[in-house]
């Protein structure tokens, strides 16, 4: 396939998914709660301060926040950047593993709050940490087929972790919202996407369980690294593109080390990775993790820049996307707070406050 091929090409044999009509991101928005729990606090309480720290600190949601409220914040930012009327949004899809309700959609709450109801589609998505990117792929199909002009894909989480578990150092809160629409209006055009999934039980949460379980080191090579590498390599091969052709690359970031290592293995430099690497300061925001890395990139990218985005969801799979930043990026950027605005908005809390905010204490 030639580089920069037209979006209208449909080449199923390469495994690259592309819609019949061109689709892009027409609006994007990030959201992070303001509270921060330093990883050293978790180590102080659970390991006498001796634990190795996978991140510097993580973002923690406040008492009155959940995936619905946070998704609304991010979606409003995206609508502001898109500059369209909310009634034109044909779908509101929220991917998360911490939907407030087991039965009752988050997406209708978000759709109502942003004014997209009632003549719209709404659904919740679930695939561990890649629920947001699968919603994005579905939105590409929805818009690309002409079933709607605009569709929302949101990845947002308040990650759960058992107190004292290795995950507690990183399990953070936050995410991003992307409004997908016709490529002509796009701040970034989707040039192609590919998914790679297998039945790999590296991390899970059973029905009614409060906290997830994980296979410790099994979550590394056989899960995270295998799936991200396979998805990224297949997409790059099919797009006939090399790592150095991208201005930026963003990978799912469960900690600081994994995305840097997988990026290096695939042939990317730290310079390509650091803009989208937020995990050291916000932790792992699960379904929002790769997506908020992308909003940080869009905040600074220049028209023509190519971006590689690869998520990872346990269970397991990776969605890889190639984007090309469009001319409209500069005009809409200032219409909403930047990702770094949220990263910098920081109120540090201690473990006791975190325990109260996140309901870690059993009160009766």
């Amino acid at each position, binding site marked *: 396939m030639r580089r920069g091929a037209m979006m209208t090409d449909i080449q199923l044999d390469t495994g690259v998914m592309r819609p019949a009509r061109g689709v892009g991101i027409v609006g994007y928005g990030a959201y992070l709660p303001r509270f921060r729990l330093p990883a050293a606090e978790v180590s102080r309480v659970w390991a006498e301060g*001796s634990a190795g720290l996978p991140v510097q600190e993580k973002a923690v949601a406040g008492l009155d926040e959940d995936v619905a409220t946070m998704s609304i914040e991010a979606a409003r930012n995206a609508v502001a950047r898109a500059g369209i009327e909310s009634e034109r949004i044909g779908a509101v899809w929220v991917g998360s593993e911490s939907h407030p309700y087991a039965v009752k959609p988050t997406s209708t709450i978000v759709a109502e709050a942003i004014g997209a109801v009632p003549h719209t589609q709404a659904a919740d998505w679930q695939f561990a940490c890649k629920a947001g990117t699968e919603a994005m792929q579905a939105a590409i199909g929805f818009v690309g087929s002409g079933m709607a002009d605009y569709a929302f894909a949101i990845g947002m989480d308040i990650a759960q972790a058992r107190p004292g578990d290795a995950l507690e150092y990183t399990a953070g809160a936050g995410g991003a919202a992307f409004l997908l629409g016709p490529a002509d209006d796009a701040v970034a055009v989707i040039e192609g996407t590919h998914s790679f999934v297998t039945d790999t039980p590296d991390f899970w949460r059973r029905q009614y369980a409060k906290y997830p379980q994980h*296979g*410790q*080191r*099994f979550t590394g*090579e*056989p899960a995270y690294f295998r799936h991200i590498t396979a998805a990224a390599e297949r997409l790059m091969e099919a797009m006939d593109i090399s790592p150095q052709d991208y201005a930026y690359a963003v990978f799912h970031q469960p900690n600081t080390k994994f995305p840097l290592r997988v990026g290096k293995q695939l042939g990317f430099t730290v310079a390509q990775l650091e803009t989208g690497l937020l995990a050291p300061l916000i932790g792992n925001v699960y379904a929002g993790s790769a997506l908020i890395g992308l909003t940080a990139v869009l905040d600074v990218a220049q028209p023509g820049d190519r971006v590689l985005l690869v998520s990872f969801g346990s269970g397991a799979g990776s969605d890889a996307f190639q984007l090309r930043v469009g001319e409209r990026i500069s005009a809409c950027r200032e219409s909403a707070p930047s990702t770094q605005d949220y990263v910098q908005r920081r109120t540090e809390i201690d473990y006791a406050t975190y325990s109260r905010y996140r309901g870690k204490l059993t009160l009766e």
Partner: protein
Amino acid sequence: MSAVIEVFIAGTGHTAVGEHWGISLRHLAWEAIGPALQAAQLKKPDAIFVGNMLAARISEQQNLGALLADFCGLRGTEAVTVEAAGASGGAAMRQALLALRSGEIRTALVVGVEKTTDKVGADVTSAVAAGADSDWELAQGATAPAIAALIMRRYMHEHGVHLEQFAGFAVNSHANACVNADAMFRNVLDATRYAQAGMVASPVNVLDSAPDADGAAALVLTAGTGQLRPGLRVRVAASSLATDTLAVHDRRDVLVFAAAKLSAQRALQQAGLAPDQIDLAELYDRFSVFAALSLEACGFAQRGEGWRLAANGAIGRSGRLPISTFGGLKARGNPGGATGVYQLVEVTRQLAGTAEANQVVGAKWGLAQCLGSSGATAVTHILQGVESN
């Protein structure tokens, strides 16, 4: 030893040590057994001796003898599992030798196999800890690193040794593992990294501790030289298994690995050697302090002096007594009941001159010693490289 029936190593096989998430216990064993049988040009051994310590707990699989005989196309062959915690591999070798020397069989397959990654976390820790005294140690929460910590603390106290002075063991192991493609940890360490390592059970730190791992290793043994091809041969010169108290607190002196000492003395006597005639040793360096105590038990160092061999470089590949020549438990990895067989495969490769980048030049006599349950069981073998007639 009456030395009526001489036993030789006719072939070896082994897998990389590490995390074999995608492969089962039986497949892992086959990956070592196949090459060993092929190297020995043997279709079917008279008997199979399996060394394994964790399959019942971690893979919920017992009777590995029948399992492996069937899976490896050797259905009908006599086959049993030998278990002695971390010494299982050496104990399986010992049982194979006894059988060969009895004259009842002429060829034997010894295979050590361990699959720790069928479970993770506390399940593995508690399965491994079952090697200790269940009533008197395990019930008090004493896991393997905790027991090693008690011993190491006492060693440091009695012999006036500081933590940093143990660094040489891990540094040497990693230096040797660097050039062993089948080792688990192939990164270079220096003493600074060692000193900064996090504690597992103080004073035992992360770099004092060998990683639990998956792996399989196999040896084909023959009685007499009839089945051997011409060339450098490896003879089993000595074999001894001894025991000590299972619970460490029952020992008169926790700073003497009495079983290791007894089995080493017997083995050296069988081979007619003094300790300084051994060219290399694969010792049970599951914890740094175990390596120091093993050096002392085998007579390579005086009591309280074992750590000096690491500190002064004597254990390096070109030192006076190379140990952990492929990385040892610390860096090659510790596949439980397979470890003792790995040690024997490694010593065999050294004496046959096929150790490639890990070769100890001119090695003729090699010693392999594995321990079970913090030294409660010790198995020592001495192998000799001999030119064929």
